[in-house]
């Protein structure tokens, strides 16, 4: 596992970054904004994601039909049917409506684990990096155990043991994402901890909490945040994947992964409609990935 741990040169590089960050004035964020403005792909992805967010938030206003009300008389209508622009599913429910409502749970289940893991992982990682010694040893060795499982396997194992359910899926994904965030947080904190300005703060009598709040967090949150955004795409795919396996959302609740599963048999009848929920997952995860790449470049994070 030693390959995955940051090497001495990587730590030195992070230290250089942190020093640069420390000497930045308000010019830094202006620079980030300027770089983002010159990056059409990132802007486009941001706009698409905002539009999707608006669509799923205002789903009750936008949706033309009821998401649960189906009819055996109009099952699996093709895309472009009058009144049902995206067709109907295997129980005759309007696809457009279900995709709009389904996005709510898919987004919620994809983003919540990353947010929770970001908070918990940052606390533990900064603690391990700042305190060092036995605390570091304890936290990092516990992290190693989770690294001994492929992430998908770990998520399925925990969900499988806990049983199906939205909350169980979120819990298992949170557990999967905490260890990698701890590693990133620990390595950036270690890079900053021994720098001169931290030493100066300590010499002038600042307590550990003040040092962490004022001097450490400002320099480490950026890289950790950018890393966390890169996890959202994986998290969306895995969350919908758990529902696809029957381990997440339970029917008749609309969710993209579950919809993809229930429409599986429809690929012989109406492949166009059956592919739609997966296309939504793909589009969302692609946009989050490109957005994260753009942010990484604009914020000049090399971690």
């Amino acid at each position: 596992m030693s390959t995955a741990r940051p090497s001495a040169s990587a730590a030195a590089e992070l230290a250089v970054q942190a020093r640069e960050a420390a000497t930045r004035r308000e010019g830094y964020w202006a620079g980030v904004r300027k770089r983002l403005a010159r990056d059409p792909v990132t802007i486009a992805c941001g706009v698409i994601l905002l539009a999707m967010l608006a669509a799923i938030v205002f789903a009750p206003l936008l949706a033309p039909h009821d998401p649960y009300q189906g009819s055996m008389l109009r099952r699996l209508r093709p895309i472009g049917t009058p009144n049902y622009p995206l067709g109907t599913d295997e129980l005759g429910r309007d696809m457009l409506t279900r995709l709009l409502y389904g996005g709510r749970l898919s987004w919620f289940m994809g983003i919540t684990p990353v947010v929770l893991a970001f908070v918990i992982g940052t606390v533990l990682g900064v603690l391990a990096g700042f305190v060092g010694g036995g605390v570091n040893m304890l936290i990092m060795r516990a992290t190693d155990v989770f690294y001994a499982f492929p992430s998908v396997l770990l998520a399925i194992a925990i969900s499988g043991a806990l049983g199906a359910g939205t909350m169980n899926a979120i819990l298992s994904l949170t557990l999967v994402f905490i260890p990698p965030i701890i590693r990133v947080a620990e390595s950036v904190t270690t890079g900053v901890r021994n720098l001169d300005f931290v030493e100066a703060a300590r010499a002038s009598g600042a307590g550990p909490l003040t040092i962490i709040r004022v001097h450490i967090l400002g320099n480490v949150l950026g890289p950790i945040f950018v890393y966390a955004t890169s996890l959202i795409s994986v998290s969306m795919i895995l969350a919908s994947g758990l529902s696809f396996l029957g381990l997440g959302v339970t029917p008749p609740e609309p969710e993209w992964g579950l919809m993809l599963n229930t429409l599986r048999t429809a690929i012989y009848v109406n492949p166009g409609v059956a592919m739609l929920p997966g296309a939504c997952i793909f589009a969302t995860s692609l946009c989050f990935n490109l957005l994260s790449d753009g942010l990484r470049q604009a914020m000049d994070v090399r971690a």
Partner: protein
Amino acid sequence: MLLYLLRRLLYAVPIALSVGLVCFLLVHIAPGDPINAIVPADAPQELVEQIRRDYGLDRPLPIQFAVWLGKVAQGDFGNSLATGRPVWADLSVAIGNTLRLAFAAALIGFVLGTVLGGLAGSFQGSPIDKLAVAFAVAGVSVPHYWLGMVLVVIFSVQLNWLPAMGAGPGGSSDWAWDAEHVRHLILPAVTLSVIPMGIVTRTVRGIVAEILNQDFVQTLRAKGLSGWGVFLHVVKNAAPNSIAVMGLQLGYLLGGSILVETVFSWPGTGLLLNNAIFQRDLPVLQATILVLAMFFVVLNLAVDLVQTAIDPRIRRG
């Protein structure tokens, strides 16, 4: 070198033990008394107690763990609650099928990823670079269970070229290296290969670009080395890190295959796991996760050792 080898091997022991502990605890984080999965709800109390004693479920957890570990070390994973057969009988067949699928996917993903990434890194900013980058980001963003369905729609439903399900004719799970079985392997393997392809492309591209920017490449060119000679130097320098990434990816394929196996009804560990979860067959769940995770631990170890063997800088560091 020998010392490093020994230290690395020793370090894998506590990791393997903790993996065992996590798998053991899986059954205990499952809601409800594990005994409920074994005996029917209306069984008389004496019978429940009798079975609890027989299974050792009345003893303290650490002792249960030790007993379980001892049995596992001898290859005894217990019996399936659903079928009553030894877990290992089904698991060994499933593992074989999963490994075949994972290795086939790895082969496709690594070869394509290395070629694409190498070209992209050598010709940065060119159309082929942009194509490779787009391919890579699509590869890591696509939900592969959906990609599998799309491929089935195109190649099985519309074109009728390749089978949509199973590992062989008639739904048999026995494998043979003949045309019919290989035809069944193509779609799932291609589906599973997109993620490692994306990640390997990205990694190799970055590594190659970084090497080409270094001074020694300039020196090689200046002293008149041909393009082929420079290429060999780049390969030698890019290999250790690329191999490390590929090794990890191979491990992730063992987990990622679960979703793809479900799509294609591939008779591997994914299908086994899926059935175990829905029948609450905890011994099968536990054993499958344990075996896959142990593969991953061994793979990590192997990657480290290979990397050390071909990169002297790590040994010294």
